[in-house]
């Protein structure tokens, strides 16, 4: 491994975000299954996703998906573009920058109801 260099951190973050997204996906398949219990049960159960705490969890999910996506594109550039290996460090800086920009833009909308004092119809119960 490339101990302590950017290659190690990009690789480690790719794994950690990948496992985190997979865990969320399994939870998400279960919560979507609740549709089969009809509107009352589903709407009550899904209100938990609107609470401020779970909105924060959503922020972590969004950051993970953005990083894993952009770094995945970086990996493909390294694999298929002959110059990719040479620019892998610069590409990683680009990945982090795009992740940060996307995260701030999307995170603003996720947390907007909390900034607005959490109206009950937007933040659950």
């Amino acid at each position, binding site marked *: 491994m490339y101990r302590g260099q950017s290659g190690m951190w990009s690789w480690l973050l790719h*794994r950690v975000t990948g496992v985190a997204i*997979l865990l969320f996906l399994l939870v998400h398949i279960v919560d979507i*299954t609740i549709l089969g219990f009809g509107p009352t049960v589903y709407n009550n159960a899904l209100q938990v*996703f609107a609470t401020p705490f779970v909105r924060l969890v959503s922020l972590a999910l969004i950051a993970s998906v953005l990083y894993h996506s952009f770094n*995945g594109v970086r990996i493909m550039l390294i*694999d298929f573009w002959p110059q990719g290996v040479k620019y892998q460090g610069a590409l990683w800086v680009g990945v982090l920058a795009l992740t940060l920009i996307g995260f701030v833009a999307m995170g603003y909308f996720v947390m907007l109801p909390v900034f607005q004092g959490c109206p009950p119809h937007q933040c659950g119960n």
Partner: protein
Amino acid sequence: MRTSIYTSTRPASTKGGMTFELFSWYFMRISGLALVFLAIIHLVVMHVSNDVSQTSYDFVATRYQNPFWRVYDLLLLSLALFHGLNGLRVIIDDYVRNQAWRLAWQTFVAVIAVVFWITGTITVVTFHPGSAPLSAFFGMLFHR
């Protein structure tokens, strides 16, 4: 340490044929590229152009009147689940050195793949507003 998914070392093929590891290597890249769009658009639709609090039962019902979103969700479900679990398979290969434990973990991953794919697919394909098959099923079990 085998880190084939991540490093650019494409797994060797035997006499130009397709091995499972080579198939896996290509699958991660093809599904990954599709998921960049599928997953990010999904997040934007559910968290930016709508607020999560609006994604109610009626929201799903309206959305699923259009078969496009059922196909979209089925594609997102299938690619994300198999991409993620294949990633987990590689991580297990990296860290679990004992053969018996490795087989046990990978069997577990395979079972998760089948159970969750079938569960998710049933919801995406059969969802019909007004019918509550799970309520009916559990009602039958517990209120005889």
